[in-house]
């Protein structure tokens, strides 16, 4: 306050001088004053609109952002280092904690990478169940991120409707994996166990009821005048820039580039399903929002096709070098016990060499770079996190906008701190 009053006094003095001498004041005095009017604001590390532990030091001129300095790493848990002492199946636990909003997608990303490295052909039934769970978690991720976008901009109702739907999905996943958040879904070579009896009914039920809730949410938020004003033309990035910053996933598709790993390099059994890739055209917050909304319906299409055609058969590879034998065999058969012991103690061993494999996670291309020396632990693991690259363009997106735009932009990018820092 003293600074403000000093400035007032200076201005008054200046005014009197001006009246008196009627000469223009030196220009640099004004510039200095403009500099002085800048406010440095800490958005984060703990800020309700920053979605996790993100730290942005924002320089403001009035309400306009003139500079942003992002600081990350508050949630860095050294998973890449841990990966070097964990076995391939153990590292699955670390992947849960990367994008914790849609953990099964990271699990499958890791499993598919290791299986591709080992050249394993996973049974069809496991592929279909994985596809269903992965697409349900894509819906789950978009439910949260778009619900929260509404909350950040003042619309609470739709968020609660979506959370009710998310709860149904959590129950489906809980029945399958035993956990809600850190799912550790699947194992190398298939699934941990077969799906529960009511899995198909639960999924069918969700596929039937979800479009109604979706329509309600769409009606209440998408064409809401306030919501449109807050998101259209805000946080714009064009396709050229987005590509050069390494954007992938819905954030890239919002700029009009129809790149999706599921179509470009189909993994699992995506080539068997019919679905479209929704794209936007302007690359603003509203486009990122609508692309995600439309993606949910496409995911629902895939789930619908998959759940109606789940084939019978084994849910994992019947190879004792990859998947654990049945528990009852372990207790009664010598051979199974040896396999069990070998697999627990010496692990799954991919061949020596290096391998990069990426899948389409909720936020974009999630890649695992694995260097193996033929042992039970990866020699080196590196995770290509989609958030990391989207967030590196934050300066590009925020500078020139207002502080309220920053909230909408960060929210629409759907930055997950756990994935960002890894």
């Amino acid at each position, binding site marked *: 306050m003293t600074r403000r009053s000093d400035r007032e006094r200076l201005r008054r003095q200046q005014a009197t001088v001006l009246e008196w001498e009627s000469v223009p004041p030196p220009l640099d005095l004004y510039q200095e004053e403009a500099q002085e009017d800048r406010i440095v604001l800490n958005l984060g590390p703990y800020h309700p609109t920053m979605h996790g532990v993100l730290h942005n030091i924002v320089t403001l001129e009035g309400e306009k952002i003139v500079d942003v300095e992002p600081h990350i790493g508050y949630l860095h848990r*050294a998973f*890449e280092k841990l990966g070097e002492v964990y076995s391939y199946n153990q590292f699955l636990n670390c992947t849960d904690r990367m994008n914790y909003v849609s953990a099964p997608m990271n699990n499958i990303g890791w499993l598919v990478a290791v299986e591709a490295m080992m050249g394993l052909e996973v049974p069809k039934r496991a592929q279909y169940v994985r596809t269903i769970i992965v697409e349900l978690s894509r819906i789950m991720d978009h439910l949260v991120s778009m619900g929260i976008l509404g909350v950040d901009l003042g619309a609470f109702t739709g968020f609660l409707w979506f959370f009710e739907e998310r709860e149904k999905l959590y129950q489906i996943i809980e029945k399958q994996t035993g956990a809600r958040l850190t799912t550790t879904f699947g194992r190398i070579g298939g699934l941990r166990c077969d799906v529960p009896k009511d899995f198909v009914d639960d999924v069918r039920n969700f596929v039937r009821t979800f479009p109604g809730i979706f329509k309600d949410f769409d009606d209440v938020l998408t064409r809401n005048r306030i919501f449109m004003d807050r998101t259209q033309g805000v946080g714009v990035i064009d396709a050229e820039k987005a590509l050069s910053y*390494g954007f992938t996933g819905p954030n890239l598709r919002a700029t009009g580039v129809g790149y999706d790993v599921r*179509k470009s390099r189909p993994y699992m059994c995506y080539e068997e399903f019919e679905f479209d890739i929704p794209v936007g055209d302007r690359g603003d917050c509203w486009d990122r929002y609508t692309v995600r909304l439309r993606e949910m319906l496409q995911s629902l299409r895939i789930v619908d096709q998959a759940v109606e055609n789940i084939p019978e058969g084994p849910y994992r590879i019947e190879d004792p070098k990859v998947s654990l034998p049945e528990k009852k065999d372990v207790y009664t058969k010598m051979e199974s016990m040896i396999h069990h012991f070998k697999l627990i103690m010496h692990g799954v061993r991919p061949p020596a060499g*290096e391998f*990069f494999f*990426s899948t389409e996670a909720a936020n974009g291309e999630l890649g695992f770079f694995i*260097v193996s020396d033929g042992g039970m632990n990866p020699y*080196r693991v590196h995770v290509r996190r989609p958030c*990391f690259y989207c967030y590196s363009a934050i300066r590009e997106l925020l500078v020139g906008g207002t502080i309220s735009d920053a909230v909408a932009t960060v929210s629409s990018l759907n930055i997950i701190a756990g994935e960002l820092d890894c």
Partner: protein
Amino acid sequence: MKETWQEAVSDAVRSRTGDGLIEAVSGPEMPVLIIEAGAIMDVAQVLRDAASGVEFRVLLDITAVDYLKYPDSHPQRFAVVWHFLDPESGRQIRVKAFLSGGESPPSLTSLYPAANWAEREVFDMMGISFSGHPNMVRILMPYDYEGNPQRKDFPLEGPERAKQIHGELLGNKALTSWKELHDL
């Protein structure tokens, strides 16, 4: 068909960089170009400007590997690995350069802004700095942190790590018990 674009890319890179391209091999999932670290700028230029007909417009990832404890021998201790992507066709390519600890390859930030944070991460984790980078500081670890955690000689845990952290406090004498550390 698959061979053609891979050969076209390696030919285009070879004609631009000459000896910069050491070897072009086909990995199990994508082609791999092994290059001299200093030639990465030219290689990236060729890849991005579609001199070979494939336009690698996305720098997907940069990382590094420390081969210190790898069973097979390698030309140098470290390798920096770049992954590029062509979003039109979905094709990927890996570029790899071996280098010793002190070398610093050129930064790709001017070509691909995506390289900015990715190179900072490599610098943070492996201690490989990139020349010409606008802001070569740590990104994940605290700014005043010492050591590069992803290097193979960096211990994961245990008294060795504690000694490294508290080495100065202990006056560089060996740590005998955890209690000693606790009393500091």
